[in-house]
Every structure is written in C-alpha cells, then in structure tokens.
C-alpha cells in the first residue's frame, strides 16, 4: 500500500515537472511531437533510475564516511555527468538500436535538473535504497506522463491558428502553467 501511495504521489501529486518545477527545459524543448516526447521520457527514466542508485551508493559509502556531505550538489553533478557519458558509450557499443532511438537525448540529459533533483530528493527524504529506486521510477514516470500530455496538446497547436506573438514557446509556457494548475487538483488526494 505504501509503495502504491508513493507511486501515485510521485506521478500525480508531487509531479517532478508540474509540482516541483524541475526539468523544464526538456519539457518545453522536446514536446513538439509525441514520438520525440516519448523518447525523451524514456531516456530520462533510464538515466534517473541509474543515477539515483549510483549517487545513493556514493553518498552512503564515500561521502558519509569522509564527512563530505556539504559537497553533495557538486559531487552529484560530476557523478551524473560521468555516468551519462558512460551510458552513452556503453549503449553505442552494446545496444546500438536503443542508442539510435535515444540519440541526442542522452547527452541532453546530463544537464537535466530533474535527474539531479530526484537524486538529491531521495537523500533529503531519507529513503532506503529500494524505496529510493522505486521513487526514482515513479518520478520519471511522472515526467513521462507530463511531457507526453504536453506533446499531445502542442501537436494540436501545430494545426491551430495562434497569433504570431504567441506561437511556439509563449503558448507552450502558458500551457505548462495551466497544466500545473490542473495537476494541483490532485493535491488533496493524499492526505
């Protein structure tokens, strides 16, 4: 039951994009087409889960014993950047089809604050490893949901008459705001 609640709250109530405002650049940048959005969402899911597990272990076995927690942010950034590089090389060699389909999204994720956000959040919430992993899955599913919904809406925009000054990013930002408000309605769901 607790796990279920964790999932629901991470996807709907505390959606990483719409309630915590992390990872907004891919949200606006990669949401013009559904296919692209799904690719980005999947890549984020993949990297977030890996990064969470690795930073979790790093924190537990390196940073805590040496009392280096105050360097958390910069350490995590380094670890995640190196990890993404590594994953990219690994996929290119071992799973070329996956590498092709993720394409440019993988390097983009290096600078995706949602990944770093989840890694730091699980430390702050003092989860254990299993819960942390599950939470990272749920959070990235929330990301996937939000970005795919956004892409659906923006595909509609493409065939709609929109005043020139509002085309592209402006209407996208307004949509993001409205979607945030809509997701706010989930707030009362879990006490």
């Amino acid at each position, binding site marked *: 039951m607790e796990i279920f609640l964790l999932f629901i709250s991470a996807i709907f109530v505390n959606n990483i994009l719409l309630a915590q405002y992390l990872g907004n650049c891919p949200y606006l940048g990669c949401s013009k087409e559904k296919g692209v959005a799904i690719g980005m969402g999947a890549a984020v899911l993949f990297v977030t889960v890996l990064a969470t597990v690795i930073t979790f272990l790093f924190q537990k076995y390196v940073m805590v014993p040496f009392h*280096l927690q105050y360097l958390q942010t910069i350490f995590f950034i380094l670890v995640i950047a190196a990890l993404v590089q590594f994953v990219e090389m*690994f996929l290119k060699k071992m799973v070329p089809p996956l590498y092709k389909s993720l394409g440019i999204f993988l390097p983009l994720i290096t600078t995706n604050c949602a990944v770093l956000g989840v890694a730091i959040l699980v430390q702050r919430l003092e989860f254990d490893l299993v819960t942390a992993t599950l939470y990272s899955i749920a959070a990235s599913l929330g990301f996937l949901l939000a970005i795919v919904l956004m892409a659906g809406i923006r595909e509609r925009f493409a*065939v709609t008459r929109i005043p020139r000054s509002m085309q592209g990013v402006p209407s996208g930002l307004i949509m993001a705001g409205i979607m945030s408000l809509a997701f706010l309605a989930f707030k009362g769901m879990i006490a």
Partner: protein
Amino acid sequence: MIIESVVSLFGLGFVSASVLSVASKLLAVEEDPRLEVVVEALPGANCGGCGFAGCEAYAAAVINDPSTPPNKCCAGGPDVAKRIAELTGKAAGDADPMVAFRRCVKVEGKVAKKFDYFGIQSCAAAKLVQDGPDACKYSCLGFGDCVRACPFDAMWIEGDLVHISPEKCTSCGTCVRTCPNSILELIPRRSRVMVFCSSQDKGKAVKDVCEAGCISCGACIKKCPAQCITMVDERIHIDHKACLAYGPSCGEACVEKCPRDILRCLNPDMISAAPDTEPARYPDESHVADLQA
C-alpha cells in the same frame, strides 16, 4: 576543510576521467570514415526527399547498400550526385530533374464554395469536413499545408491557389506527400504537356462544379500517337518519359484536341516541326511559373 574538498573533488574528477577514458577505449565503435565525408557532401537539409529519415541515414545507405543510387538527393541536385558517386565509387546516372506541379486551376473554373469554412486553417482539417469547402472535392483547398511543409520555401498561396517557384523547388516531394487532395505531382522539368486538373469525377459531375475541369472525354487519349496518355480513376495520366521519347513530331495533338483546354503545353517554344532527332531542349524554367500563375 578547504584541502579536503579540493582533494576530494580533484580525486573524483580524476577517477571519473580515468574510468571514462578506459571505457572509451574498451567501448570504441569503429565508424566508417567515409560516412562523415558523405554527410559533409550532402546539403544537410534533412528534407526526406531521398526517402530516408535524414541526410545521415541516406549517407549510411548509399555507402553500405550497393542498390542505393548516389543521385537520390534531390535537394543537392546533379552536383551533389556527382560528388557522392565519386566518394562511393558508384555510377552517377542521369536522372531527369523533376519539379513539383499543381494540377488545378479552380480560379479559371469559377469553382463555387459549398459552405463557409471557419475551422482549423489547414487543408487536412478542412478536407475532413465534407471533403472541403469547395464545390469540387479535388480542388486545391488553399490553406497551404504544402507551403508549410516545403523545406525550401518554394511555394506560396495566392488567390486561394498554391503556386510553386520552379527555381527554388528541388523536387524533394514533401509537398506531394502532404497534400490531402493529391493535386501535386512531380514531373520532369522538360515535360511537354501537363493536365491542369486532378478531378476523379465523371464528366457531368465536373461540368456541374467547374468551368475548366477535365471532363474525362478521352479525346486526348485517342489522339496521342505515342499512347502515353491513360486514364486512371477518371484522372488523366501522362507518361512523360514516353512523351519525351516520342518527340515533337506529334505536334502536341492531345493539346489541340482537348475541348476544355485543360491539357496545356508547358514549354511553348518547344512546339513541333523540329526533327525528331533534336534532343528535347531543356526549357528555361520560367515557363512553368508562368503557366501555373
């Protein structure tokens, strides 16, 4: 504290750097060095006219697949084809340069509006509502889906009809794939005649809605000595290859015979009389524009 943080950061950086450099050695993937060169040689428009996902996909195919010809890139034209052929050691082949053509003259036919359309301003959307607001359901809808799709800025809408600039058109075919009424067609630039209507309706139905449209009488088919005109689904189809091969000795009999003046010479200076042996002249491109205007 300062020393600790500097040392630990340096250490972490060093460790990740070494891991990554070892990994890059172990996981190195050999890439065909030709790929980069071929991609360089392509125009990089990623228009998809070659039938591949993008310039890189085409480059990979042309290098690795012996059956992919080097002249598929229409945006690049003959120069690029030659360069690619050199790079890949394939025969360049001399494909006929093509151009997009609009088979509709609804303004001349005074096609009436069935109803006023206020929906999404897109041909695809308008087409969904009772086959579009025009009385002829095969006419150019004029919302410019093709104009928006054209990667080379070669089209524009004027007076509810689409127009094509033959100078800018690279015959990538994006517009042809986009148009929901399939009134756009790629034809050889040297084409002699073309049908300015794409209706698939029977003669009577066309007469009811358009003063100019093709009434499928078939007069041109019977007149053409080269038999390069056929009727597919009540729509006239010209085999331009056969037509060009036959040459001007027919005197453009089809054009003369068409009671509705819907078959027109694309290149007015290239009319008949000249001996068969003279190769079809490469028309100066403005005539296509003139005729389509």
